[in-house]
């Protein structure tokens, strides 16, 4: 029944290989712009590095992890071979080809536009073609998730869709739709310029399109992590999932509310009307609800594990938890980072507070804490959990795993807390160097050095990840027992049809996107004279 082991391993290895390189670039960036290094003689090297780091970490790592984990869930949760294995390999190939196509011009200094593109600056066409290929590869995955669910439901009429599959398909649909914004920007705005067919571009419209993708993409990154919270962690620590229904509601809410909120990234932009900014900030509040529900359900599930292990009293169950288990440790660290990051996110959500920190180093700190911290640490937990089932070899070194997770959690805090602080002080992000000798910036020097240290801790943690996985590759063969996902305290015998399929939620997602984005986009397209001359980067005479 199990025919996609190599496929899944290929996804994870490619994701982690890119992650390893980008991690080193990130730490180099931290160092080069800190007071520890002399000003870099070619600032473009720094911007190339930022572009490569962001492109790999934002587009390649999470996409490949989501795809690989999605294929894993499909087979393990539906308990039958996945349909469309050849298509899945094609998707992987497109992602690999796209990554290479994107990174080569970046390395050559032909596309230092950062991963957020920033038209009217336009770089080499192959950079954008590469990104489009990665997205196309991931859309194949979206389609395969849909097909597999559809066929399973056809063969099992009325039966509840296994929760891991429900959540995975929700994530796939979210990505399929949210990627459309950036795809429109790339295909209809940037690529015609990059290929030389046009020489003007509407920068304001491009920012609106990108915001369509920019926020919901974070929830796409989050999906594997949340799926792991619900479907791996309770089982791994010997507990039960508190509520299957609440889990389904949380994922359905993500689908609905993650999309129509992106314009909060454009609060300080001039091209969007104030009314739409307000509307998006309201829905940005709504999207916090499924996270709050998740926090409750997972804490309750963990408490069940603690009590099943003999924990007593109001807090006694905490002591009874299996803290030496990597899944437990990873989840705890992830929750700590999610807590701090989420609190920061509520600040970004309101126009008034956002104005203080918009585009400062605070923002970098915020999304590193949420994404690189809370989310990526669970990618490690997922890998540790499923690896023995993919390789048929046990991952024995729990001590190393714990060290790796601890270092990741600590490193991320040491990295991002100073970033938040200097952001409040007004330090702009993404600059190749700063003049710390100036009294106005001198106070930034110490926190910046601290985050260099945080980055170094993360590099050590990254090295340990590879050590653990490579040692696992060379461990003796051992047939692991059948893979299990968490079981709910009360496994559903019947699920309301609305929570057994995506139709209603996808419908609401698309409807809200049209309501919240339709007019700003249509208006920008219809307004004459907003296209401005493109500025090609990376042309050196």
């Amino acid at each position, binding site marked *: 029944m199990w025919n996609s082991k190599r496929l899944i391993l290929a996804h994870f290895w490619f994701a982690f290989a890119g992650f390893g390189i980008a991690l080193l670039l990130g730490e180099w960036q931290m160092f080069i712009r800190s007071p520890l290094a002399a000003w870099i003689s070619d600032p473009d090297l720094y911007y190339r590095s930022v572009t490569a780091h962001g492109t790999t970490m934002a587009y390649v790592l999470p996409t490949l992890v989501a795809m690989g984990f999605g294929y894993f869930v499909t087979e393990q949760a539906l308990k039958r071979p996945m349909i469309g294995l050849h298509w899945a390999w094609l998707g992987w190939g497109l992602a690999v080809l796209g990554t290479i196509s994107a990174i080569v011009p970046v390395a050559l200094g032909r596309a230092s536009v950062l991963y957020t593109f920033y038209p009217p600056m336009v770089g080499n066409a192959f950079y954008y073609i590469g990104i489009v290929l990665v997205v196309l590869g991931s859309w194949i995955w979206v389609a395969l998730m849909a097909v597999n669910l559809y066929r399973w439901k056809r063969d099992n009429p009325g039966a509840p869709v296994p929760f891991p599959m429900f959540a995975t398909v929700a994530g796939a649909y979210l990505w399929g739709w949210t990627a459309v914004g950036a795809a429109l920007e790339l295909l209809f705005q940037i690529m015609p310029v990059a290929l030389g067919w046009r020489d003007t571009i509407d920068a304001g419209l491009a*920012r609106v399109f990108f915001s369509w993708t920019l926020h919901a993409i974070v929830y796409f990154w989050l999906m594997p992590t949340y799926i792991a919270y619900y479907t791996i962690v309770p089982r791994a620590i010997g507990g039960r999932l508190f509520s299957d229904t609440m889990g389904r509601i949380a994922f359905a809410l993500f689908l609905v509310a993650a999309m129509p909120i992106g314009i909060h990234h454009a609060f300080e932009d001039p091209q969007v009307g104030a009314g739409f900014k307000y509307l998006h900030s309201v829905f940005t509040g709504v999207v916090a609800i499924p996270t709050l*529900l998740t926090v409750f359900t997972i804490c309750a599930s963990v408490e069940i594990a603690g009590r099943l292990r003999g924990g007593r009293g109001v807090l006694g169950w905490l002591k009874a938890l299996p803290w030496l288990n990597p899944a437990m440790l990873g989840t705890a660290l992830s929750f700590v980072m999610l807590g701090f990051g989420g609190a920061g996110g509520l600040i970004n959500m309101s126009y008034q507070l956002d104005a203080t920190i918009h585009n400062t180093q605070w923002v970098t700190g915020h999304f590193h804490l949420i994404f690189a911290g809370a989310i990526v640490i669970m990618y490690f937990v997922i890998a540790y959990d499923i690896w023995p089932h993919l390789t048929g070899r046990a991952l024995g070194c729990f001590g190393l795993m714990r060290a790796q997770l601890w270092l990741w959690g600590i490193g991320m805090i040491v990295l991002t807390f100073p970033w938040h602080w200097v952001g409040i002080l007004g330090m702009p992000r993404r*600059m190749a160097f700063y003049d710390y000798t100036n009294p106005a910036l001198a106070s930034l020097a110490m926190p910046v050095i601290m985050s260099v240290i945080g980055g170094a801790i993360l590099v050590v943690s990254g090295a340990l990840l590879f050590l653990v996985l490579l040692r696992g590759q060379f461990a003796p063969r051992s047939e692991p027992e059948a893979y299990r996902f968490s079981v709910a305290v009360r496994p559903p015998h019947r699920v309301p049809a609305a929570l057994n399929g995506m139709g209603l939620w996808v419908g609401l997602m698309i409807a809200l996107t049209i309501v919240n984005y339709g007019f700003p986009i249509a208006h920008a397209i219809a307004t004459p004279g907003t296209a401005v001359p493109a500025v090609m980067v990376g042309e050196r005479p």
Partner: protein
Amino acid sequence: MTDLVSQPAPDPAAEHAERVEHRWATFAVAIIVLLVAVATFAAFYHTAVPQARVETVNPRTLHLAGEFIESNLGSALDADGSVTVRVIGEQYSFTPSCILVPTDTPITFRMTSADVVHGFLVDGTNINLMLVPGYISSLGARFDAPGERLMPCHEFCGVGHEGMWARVRIVDKAAFVALATRRRRLSCVE
């Protein structure tokens, strides 16, 4: 362990769990409603609001005609006593590169970009705007105390981005008004 899994309904434990769950869900919704309400009332009481109007401008011809020609940039004392500051961002400087503003005066920044996307931030304040070519960004502000503040470009705008810093000098209102009687557009560019 298994007894937890397959308990027959109705079941007091299940009902209790459901009650707790509902209570938490209600609480979560209440938190969010409160946060959104706080932000709304802050906007109502005028602490900071997004610009009220969308305006376009042609970035290629800023220097030829209109309010962004170089002689019209800088701070203008308006008839009603407020001050309008016009600024251009371009690769890789702001014009004027030193902005002069008075204390205790309503100030409107009107800004735009001549080429790519730039960012406008006054350190230590909540003055923060994106400059997008083709559009005019505007923002109301008020400074309480005299002093000098840094004004970096906070959005990546090309390979010289790290060198794009300007300054804001805040002077006493009376001194500003005195200067404004002699020149119609003020800045602290020397």
